[in-house]
């Protein structure tokens, strides 16, 4: 037996939700925070690239609302904000040991998250029909190729994060139906919530930068 394996055996099974004495956060949550901080850098690099391209080549970008459907996306942003509330309500429900409440709020979050992705797909379809594709030389409504490339890159990556989040939410819901969570074992719901709220937070910033500025 190696030294590491011997130390692990002596410590007993690892509990990912056990609070760490130093930081005061259990390992699962700490891991999610570290992951989210790496995501901050990822989205910052995209936003940084967008800002430099936007201000270095203003002729490539149309004014807000000329190409993109701001009212539709504002409504979609509201849907995502609502999904953050339902997610935090799910967490509050399991903290009270309210299993039914947890399941209902998770279902609501899944529906709202799926609605967000659905509206984004609808928006993409209409933009494609109008000729706003990622790599066109120029767009009839205004703007050049950088506009399409950066728009689809940023919103596409965010949409991918939301889609992955919906998939994970379905997994958490299945676990909730099986009764895997309780007020003393809610780490899975909490870290899912952290991811979901982060996705909401990123969209609040992206919506401003891509659609309103």
């Amino acid at each position, binding site marked *: 037996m190696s030294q590491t394996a011997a130390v692990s055996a002596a410590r007993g099974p690892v509990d990912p939700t056990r609070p760490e004495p*130093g*930081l005061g956060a259990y390992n699962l949550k700490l891991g999610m925070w570290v992951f989210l901080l790496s995501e*901050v850098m990822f989205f910052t690099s995209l936003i940084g690239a967008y800002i430099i391209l936007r201000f270095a080549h203003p002729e490539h970008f149309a004014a807000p609302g000329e190409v993109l459907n701001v009212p539709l996306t504002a409504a979609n942003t509201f849907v995502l904000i609502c999904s953050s509330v339902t997610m935090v309500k799910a967490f509050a429900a399991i903290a009270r040991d309210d299993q039914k409440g947890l399941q209902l709020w998770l279902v609501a979050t899944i529906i709202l998250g799926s609605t967000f992705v659905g509206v984004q797909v609808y928006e993409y379809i209409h933009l494609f029909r109008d000729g706003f594709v990622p790599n066109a030389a120029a767009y009839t409504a205004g703007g050049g190729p950088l506009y399409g490339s950066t728009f689809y890159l940023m919103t596409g990556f965010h949409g991918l994060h939301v889609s992955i989040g919906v998939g994970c939410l379905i997994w958490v819901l299945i676990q909730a139906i099986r009764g895997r969570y309780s007020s003393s074992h809610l780490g899975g719901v909490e870290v899912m919530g952290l991811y979901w709220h982060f996705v909401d937070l990123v969209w609040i910033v992206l919506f*401003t930068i891509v659609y309103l500025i």
Partner: protein
Amino acid sequence: MQNGEQSHQPYMLIWGILAFLMLAKVGVSLVGMPQWMSISFLVLISLVSALLVALYYMHLRSEPKKLWILAAVPFPLVIILILLVIQDFG
């Protein structure tokens, strides 16, 4: 966050504020004000909204201070990245 604290959290109030701030952003973008002013308002409103989500929905407000330090780690890096990007305009 400690169990049992959730019932005291102002989740619906924050939801209302976030919805209002979202409408305010759309309003600012529609009002014809100088670009620098409109961008400043929009960035400020977005930062406030993002902070509210982190503090209340991600429960950062009631987390240990050491986790705050961890959460703050990427922001100096973000500032460095933005400062490097701005050099390209010089």
